[in-house]
Each structure stands twice: as C-alpha cells, then as structure tokens.
C-alpha cells in the first residue's frame, strides 16, 4: 500500500506545482504594472489565510460548489455528460424559497422542509435530460445545455408572477422568513450550517461510490458500459439513479445557498455554480472525497480575488482566468501521461514492490 501512496503523492506534487505555476503565470502580468508586484501576489495568495474570518469566507464560498462538485461527480460517473446541474441549483433555490414563503412554519424543521422541496424540484433538471437520453437517445449534453435556459426563464416567470415583492425595488421575492434560514456559524461571515451538510454529503458520496455495492455498480456502468451489460447489470436504472441523486444534490445546493446567504430570492440569471461544480469534479478527479479540498481550493482562490479587488483594485474576475487555466492543465495528458512521469511512477511502485 505504501508504494501506491508514494506514487499518489508524486502525482499530487506534480498537480500542485502545475497549479502554482499556472497561478503565477496568470497573476504576474497583472502584478507587474503595479508599484509592488510582490504585494499583489501576496494579497492574492496570503490574504485568504490572514484571519479566521477570511478562512470562514473560504468555507462560505466552498459550500455551494462542494455540493455542485459532488453532483457533477455523481452524474459524470454514470457516463452521461449531463449539464443540468446549473439549472438544478437555480430551481432548488427557487423551490426552497417558495416552500419557505408559502408553506406554514414547521418550527425547527422549516429549513429542512424547504431544502427537501428545493432538492426534489431541482432534481428535475438532471432527470429530464437523462430520461430523454435513455428513452429516446436525445444527446444529453445538448438538451441539458438548452434546458438550463428554459428552466431559468420558467423560474423567472414564476418569481415575477407568484413570489415578487412589489415593494422591493427590483425583481425579487418577499423576504424569506427567519425560521427558514440556516444558522450562521462564524460572526462576520455568511458561513452557515450548510457547510456541515456539504462536508457530510461529500463524505457520504465517497462512501457510496467506493464502499457500497451500488456505488461499485455505478462506476462499472459509467466506465465500462459494455462490460456492465455483459454482467447483466440494470444499466438504465443505475444511470437514472445517478441523475436523480446528482439532481437532488444540485437542488439542495441552490436551496442551502439561498436560505443560508440571502434575505430574498433574486436570481434572474443562472448562478454559474453548476459550471463551477464541473470544474470541481474535474479537479477532484471525479472522487467525492477530493471534492471538499477542491472546493476549498476554489473558495481560497475566490477570496484571494476579493482581496485583489478590495486592496489592489484588480477585478476579482482574474480568478476566472486562473481557474480556466488550471482546468486545462490538470486534465492535460501531455503533463500527467508524459512518459517521464509514467516512468517515474512505475519506478517508485516497482522499487518498493520488489522489496
């Protein structure tokens, strides 16, 4: 087991150095025109670590994208490229708001009821493209891509006609009742109990995929569909199960985001958390256990970006550039499948293997 661990560490080290190189490569052009280029880099890299409150901000950013990263991981593991998570988040937030506003209070269980409502409604965004694919072979990547926008406009319609607070200045819902809101964990941040749910969900997702029979079957269906049919596994049911779970998690992400952070529901554009979830899933190599660190890392970048915007005056969008560059390099086979890297890893494994 040791040598496998060591070989894994080599990969991790390569990944981390690639990421570090990419961050510097993107940041330096922005830092150079500045009086103190070093201060720019330091603000970005060290700012998020400078206080407990900022670490809280990192976790706050990481919470919704840990959910969507987990959702993307589970959906992709089924072998479908279903992009419905993006609108699942939107729908989940909307449905949770609706439940909080229209249903009576359930006392301490009010947030739970709202989150369940959000998860169930949000799951439609993944179930529909999955069903269209399995039943009629409609390409799920394309249908889910456009369905995201269809759901967005349907949702904005619902918001405008049923939830809109005419007293508010712009298009937004009535105030979400206080008993539906999630508990804040750290003063001065919006970090809420949703973060704990996200952590538990990712661990549970990892246990599901790697420690249970149905998780193993899901990975077999996703990575070896022909083999799965030779085994006689019920592939359709397994794939739909993954779409359902992924959609539920996406909806939950939206619900927790809205109930945890916002006074009212006011999304009139897709929040983009689903796309970030895809990035997380890729960084985490589609392993739920790695989703948490990957989400924290992106949260860290985001807070670093906020520091740049606040202290230096460089818009935080620079984080998007960094993230895009990281996406390209961490999936690059030219780096990770490079013969020299493979040789090194093989040597490590075998050197210890022949002890």
């Amino acid at each position, binding site marked *: 087991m040791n040598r496998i661990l060591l070989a894994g560490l080599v990969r991790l080290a390569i990944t981390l150095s690639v990421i570090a190189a990419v961050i510097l490569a993107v940041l330096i052009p922005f830092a150079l025109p500045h009086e103190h280029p070093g201060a720019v880099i330091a603000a970005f890299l060290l700012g998020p670590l400078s206080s407990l409150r900022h670490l809280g901000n990192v976790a706050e950013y990481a919470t919704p994208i840990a959910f969507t990263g987990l959702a993307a991981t589970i959906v992709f593991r089924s072998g479908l490229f279903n992009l419905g998570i993006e609108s699942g988040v939107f729908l989940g937030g909307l449905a949770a708001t609706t439940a909080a506003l229209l249903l009576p209070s359930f006392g301490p269980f009010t947030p739970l009821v709202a989150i369940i409502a959000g998860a169930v409604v949000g799951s439609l965004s993944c179930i529909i493209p999955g069903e269209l694919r399995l*039943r009629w072979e409609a390409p799920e*990547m394309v249908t889910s891509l456009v369905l995201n*926008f269809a759901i967005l*406009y349907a949702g904005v319609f619902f918001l405008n006609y049923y939830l809109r607070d005419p007293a508010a200045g712009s298009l937004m819902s009535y105030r979400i009742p206080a008993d539906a809101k999630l508990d804040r964990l750290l003063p001065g941040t919006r970090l809420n109990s949703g973060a704990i749910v996200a952590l538990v969900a990712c661990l549970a997702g990892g246990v599901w995929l790697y420690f249970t029979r149905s998780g193993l079957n899901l990975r077999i269906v996703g990575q070896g569909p022909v083999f799965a049919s030779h085994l006689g596994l019920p592939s359709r049911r397994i794939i739909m199960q993954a779409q359902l779970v992924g959609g539920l998690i996406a909806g939950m992400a939206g619900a927790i985001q809205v109930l945890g952070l916002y006074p009212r529901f006011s999304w009139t554009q897709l929040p983009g958390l689903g796309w970030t979830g895809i990035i997380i899933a890729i960084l985490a190599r589609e392993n739920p256990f790695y989703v948490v660190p990957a989400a924290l890392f992106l949260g860290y970048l985001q807070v670093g970006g906020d520091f740049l915007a606040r202290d230096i005056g460089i*818009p935080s969008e620079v984080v998007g550039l960094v993230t895009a560059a990281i996406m390209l390099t961490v*999936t690059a086979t030219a780096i990770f499948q490079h013969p020299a890297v493979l040789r090194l890893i093989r040597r490590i494994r075998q050197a210890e293997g022949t002890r």
Partner: protein
Amino acid sequence: MTDLISIVTDPATFATVLRVMTPLLVAALGILISDRAGVFNLGMEGMMLTGALAGVLVSAWTGSAWLGLLAAIIAGGLIGALMAVAVNGLGANLIITGIAVNLAASSGTTLALFFATGDKGMSGALKSGVMPSLDLPFIEDIPGIGPLVSGHNVLTYAALLAVPLVSIMMARTPFGLRIRAVGVDPKAAATVGISVKLIQLQALILSGMLGGMAGAYLSMGYVSWFAQDMTAGRGFIAIAIEVMGMATAWGTLAATVVIAIAETSAITMQTFGLPNELMQMIPYVVPIIILTVWTARGRAKRAAHR
C-alpha cells in the same frame, strides 16, 4: 387577430427574424465546421463574447467598424487556435477545454473592459462603431420584395452567404473532404498522409473566426455597445441549432430559421400581454422537442431495419 396578421406580414417582422438569425447562424456554422472535424467547439459562447468585445474596443480606438470586425474575427480565430493547442498539444479534454474557454472569456472580457474603460459592466463610455446596413441596388426598388430583402446589416448578408460557402467548402474542396475524413476516422485519415492535428487546428481557427464574427454582430449590429456576458447563452443555442441541422450547412440554416421565428414570435407575443419570460423559453424548448423527436424517430427506423 388582424393585429397578428399585420405583424406577420410586416417587413419589420421579417427584419427582426433576420436580426435574431444572424449571430445564431454564423455561430452554428462555426460549430458545424469544428464538429465535422471531430473537435466539437463547446467554447463558442466564449468566442462570441470575446469577438463582441474586441469589435467594440478596436472600433472605438480606430474609429473604423470594419477594423473592429477584423479584430473580432482575429480574436475568435486565436481562441480557436488556443483550443486546438490545448486539445492536441497539451492533451486536455475537448469538452473541458470548451468550458474553460467560456469561463476565461467571461472573466477575461470583464477584466479587459475594466482596464479599457474603468467600468465592469458596460462599454457605454466608448464610442464604438456599428456595421453598416446595405441597400441592394435595383433590388430595393422592386415593389413588395425590395423592402423585405434590402437594407439589412452587412453581416446579415455575410451570414446568409456563408451558408452556401460552408456547404461548398465541406462538399467540394480538398479541405472540406479532409475535415470530413478526420472527423469520422482520424486514424484512417492519417494513413493517407493527412495531418489530423493540422486539419483540426485549421477547423477550430475557422470556427473561432466565425464565432468572433457572430460576436461582432451582437455588439456592432444588434446593439452598439458591449455588456458583460451579453451573449446570454446564444453560443449554446447555436450548439443546439447545429445538432438540429444534422451538421449540414443547409440544415443549420433551416434550424436557425425555426429558432429565429420562435424567438421573434416570442418578442411579438409580448405585445399581446403574454408573459415575457414564458415567451423567452420558446427558443430553448423548441430544440429539445425537435432533437428528441428526431432521435426517437431515428431509433424507430433503425429498429425497423433490424
């Protein structure tokens, strides 16, 4: 009801359909070329956005809308080249690369706009150019047809002209033949000495150039300014259109017409008091239905064949 008829027959309605069509058609043709070469361009949204900004910035600096257009096309082509290098050079995943391009373009255009104008949201402060409209000589004088056909944006004519051009390029030129070969079976194409990477690079550059042009139309024809994320998912609708058009130029034109009519009627219906947002759903729901019906029919046909 008479209102409705007068709207349908109004030349202005026709012009609206063309306005809606233009960016979608150009972008979908760009996706078509990449798709046929086996390098599906999911980054179209980002290419359009970059083209839209490049057009505004360069036309504002140079005072020439045409130079703005050129810059938009070059910017799109560069992103296409970058995608090809990422996929075939770095070995990055094609779909991931497309998503990364969209993310980078969304952030990058905001940053560039900020550094150019000090504003993150809109380019209102810039005096950017607009692509001219074209009055077709003689044709504009034909009663009935003239006012319908003449007087549209020059990029609209370019978009319509691009359909036969792309069709001929794919069917009748060596480049098109090689694209089709590479897209179906790259290994087999390589055995006759075709460089798969080169063809895919060229296809993605061309795809990007069309994407840049589509974006330039948005910011220098459809409207006359750049706004953050102004493409608003058009790059994704273009993907749906290309798939509906079964990756052929004429099919793409037909699918664009269907979507543009759906979107235009959505705009028109709003004047009758129907909810705006529900109408906005139409162009997104139509492709899902059409794609599902087609694939379902295709499957039924194959089943009958067995």
